[in-house]
């Protein structure tokens, strides 16, 4: 047994209202730069829908993730090491920018400078890649709220796997939102695909990161990731991906997406797992057994044997304690209501989802039934096979039983807690029917419905003092005092942002300072890199968006 700790997340899809706040705040924090305009480390998809990038789940086409060879060995679906090197000059499986979308801004200046004319002037969309006029035809959530269906929705790769009849009924009955970030997999195929070895998994917390100094821009990681959550920065020529907001996590605060989630549907916590068993579990022959195989890799932090092994593996005591209080561990293994996204990709993803019960509830209510009654709910879960099948394609490689069990548990909790809230006598048989004790159902209810900040986010801080260089590493806390000083932003002689790298905190510090103290934005002389409102933080005048300040008389203080 080799115990390792993993920062993991669970999202409760019942609560997602598709407001995209997570996406927008993530973008503000991480990808509001030139070169990653099209990149959303966090995005929210409407299901059924094509997703972002379009049809990324169609692994027949994109060849992401792992597969088993005939002899049962795990291998990259896109081909092994030799094939990777042979196709390095032109990766045939790389999505084109149009599979994401061509980023654009609007020519607002036209609105302000247009001469008097009969027709209202129009702010034309301009491509942020070429600077030319463009027709906006797609975006990260073009099919939001089933927009454009049924023409667009039929291309959903998951919907294609279910039968025709189901497909037609589906659009009438069922819709939910799926927020996605990098899965920070236990068996990351992006890291395995990287020819330079630049993508690594941190031993302390399992966060998967791209070493920007070692990345050489071979683009194989984009192909390797079946979730298409590694992106290519087209200005710097380097891969970038969700960082699980490691500078925040290290000091014990949740990721930006979780922090700002309006529905409070995200949970973050530590999960202990046995690193020695990951490969075996990922090589499970039957796709549908992968969900249970992955759960069998996780270790119970309440088990004294596991605690002993964790100590031996050098996991700090407060991390083990955090693992015991971890909401993620509870939702996955205690209450068993969270499921992995696409376990059949065999990457052992670590962002799990509680499938939505609301479609059933809505269907019951709309047809005049009592949507809180457990018999009606259990009946609906069995009768409404369509959503269950679809959810099973997402979360259990098509096996409807675990999905059904999860939904029954959520329905049972609803019915049980209604009695509690109404002061009616409790019915232990409901809890029994879904395989939980009454205490467990109440605890689960608390975690799902009431849990406060420190219950949803149990994040132990990183341990700097365990390293030799204690005291120097609190990047957030101190240290703009690093060698060779800041060469803030801009283009180096060898392309975007070349030159020595600087710590994240330093970069942020100078970026903010520059914005707050200057009136110019990114590169005002270059119309190809216009400001768009998404990356304008309200500081200074964005010249492409606003008219020049009118000359004021005298020395009036600017407000």
């Amino acid at each position: 047994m080799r115990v390792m700790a993993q920062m993991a997340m669970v999202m409760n899809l019942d609560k997602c209202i598709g407001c995209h706040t997570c996406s927008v705040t993530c973008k503000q924090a991480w990808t509001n730069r030139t070169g990653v305009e099209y990149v959303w480390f966090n995005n929210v998809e409407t299901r059924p829908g094509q997703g972002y990038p379009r049809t990324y789940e169609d692994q027949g086409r994109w060849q992401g993730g792992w597969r088993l060879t005939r002899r049962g060995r795990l291998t990259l679906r896109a081909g092994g090491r030799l094939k990777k090197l042979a196709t390095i000059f032109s990766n045939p499986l790389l999505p084109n920018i149009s599979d994401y979308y061509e980023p654009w801004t609007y020519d607002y200046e036209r609105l302000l400078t247009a001469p008097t004319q009969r027709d209202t002037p129009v702010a034309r969309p301009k491509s942020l890649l070429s600077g030319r006029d463009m027709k906006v035809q797609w975006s990260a959530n073009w099919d939001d709220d089933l927009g454009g269906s049924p023409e667009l929705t039929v291309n959903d790769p998951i919907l294609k796997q279910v039968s025709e009849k189901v497909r037609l009924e589906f659009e009438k009955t069922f819709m939910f939102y799926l927020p996605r970030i990098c899965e920070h997999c236990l068996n990351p195929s992006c890291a395995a695909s990287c020819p330079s070895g630049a993508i690594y998994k941190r031993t302390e917390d399992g966060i998967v990161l791209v070493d920007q100094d070692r990345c050489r821009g071979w683009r194989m990681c984009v192909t390797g990731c079946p979730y298409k959550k590694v992106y290519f920065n087209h200005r710097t020529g380097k891969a970038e991906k969700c960082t699980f907001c490691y500078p925040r996590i290290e000091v014990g605060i949740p990721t930006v997406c979780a922090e700002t989630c309006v529905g409070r549907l995200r949970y973050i916590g530590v999960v202990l797992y046995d690193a020695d068993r990951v490969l075996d579990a990922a090589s499970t022959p039957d796709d549908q057994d992968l969900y249970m195989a992955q759960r069998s890799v996780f270790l119970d932090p309440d088990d004294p044997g596991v605690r002993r092994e964790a100590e031996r593996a050098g996991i700090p005591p407060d991390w083990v304690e955090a693992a015991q209080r971890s909401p993620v561990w509870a939702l996955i293994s205690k209450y068993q209501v969270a499921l992995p996204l696409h376990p059949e990709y065999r990457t052992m993803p670590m962002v799990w989802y509680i499938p939505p019960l609301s479609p059933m509830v809505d269907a019951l209510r709309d047809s005049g039934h009592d949507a809180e009654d457990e018999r009606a709910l259990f009946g609906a879960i069995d009768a409404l096979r369509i959503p269950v099948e679809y959810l099973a394609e997402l979360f259990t490689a098509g096996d409807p039983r675990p999905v059904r069990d999860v939904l029954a548990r959520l329905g049972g909790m609803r019915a049980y807690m209604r009695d509690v809230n109404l002061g009616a006598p409790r019915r232990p048989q409901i809890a029994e029917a879904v395989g939980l004790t009454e205490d467990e159902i109440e605890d689960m209810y608390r975690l799902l419905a009431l849990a406060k900040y420190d219950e949803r986010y149990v994040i132990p801080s990183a341990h700097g003092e365990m390293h030799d260089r204690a005291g120097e590493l609190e990047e957030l806390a101190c240290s703009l005092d690093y060698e060779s000083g800041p060469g803030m932003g801009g283009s180096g002689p060898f392309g975007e942002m070349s030159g020595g790298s600087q710590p994240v905190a330093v970069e942020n510090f100078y970026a903010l300072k520059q914005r707050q103290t200057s009136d110019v934005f990114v590169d005002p002389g270059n119309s190809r890199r216009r400001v768009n409102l998404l990356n304008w933080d309200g500081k200074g005048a964005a010249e492409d968006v606003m008219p020049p300040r009118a000359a004021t008389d005298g020395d009036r203080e600017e407000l």
Partner: protein
Amino acid sequence: MTTFLWVIVPYVSLAVFVGGHIWRYRYDKFGWTTRSSQLYESRLLRLGSPLFHFGILFVVLGHIGGLLIPESATDAVGISETFYHAVAVSLGAISGVMTLTGIAILIYRRRTTGPVFSATTKNDKFMYVLLVATLVAGLSNTVLGNLIGHPHDYRLSVAPYFRSIFYFRPAVDLMTQAGIGFQIHVTLAWILFAVWPFTRLVHFFSAPLGYLTRPYIVYRSREAAVARPVRRGWEPVTAPVAPQPRRRRAQR
């Protein structure tokens, strides 16, 4: 002039080539990338890029063979000059044409695809001109020389001259004997080597051969990423030494 062209230029170029790479690697690891533009356009790239890259790999191999292996060595193994010449010219012509076709497609793509063109730096343009000029000069030596009918045997002039550079006894007269075509090609090549470390050509040296042997999943400690050099004369704050042993607070 001959000393300048055939002694000073080569040594300056080689010094800049080696020193430049060391400096660039230390100063600019972040800028060390292929800066691929495949995201913008991949139809033409799929054709041009492998053509160019595989072509130039063969060209490099050919140069290694032609410049570093002396004629006496091939003679000793029993490979006749005419046979060697035939093979070298045909393979060289094929790979040269591959390379030039490839780069022609790539440059056409670069010019005509809007996003690719706007991602092209001045540095890139300069490098492309130099690279294409060197390639054209090299290929025309191979092809034209044989069309005229009496090719110059570079293995008796350019090759020994090239090797003599590394013995630190540059055989300048060998180079002056070589045809003007060879002289142009060699001069361009020296300039190309000198600018090499400062262009995107550096990605040649990051050919990821280590991928064949490393384990699939890379684990790294957070410590490695966080540690950075301590400034000279700056001591990290450490707790003062306690006068007497204190009971350590029990860890939670």
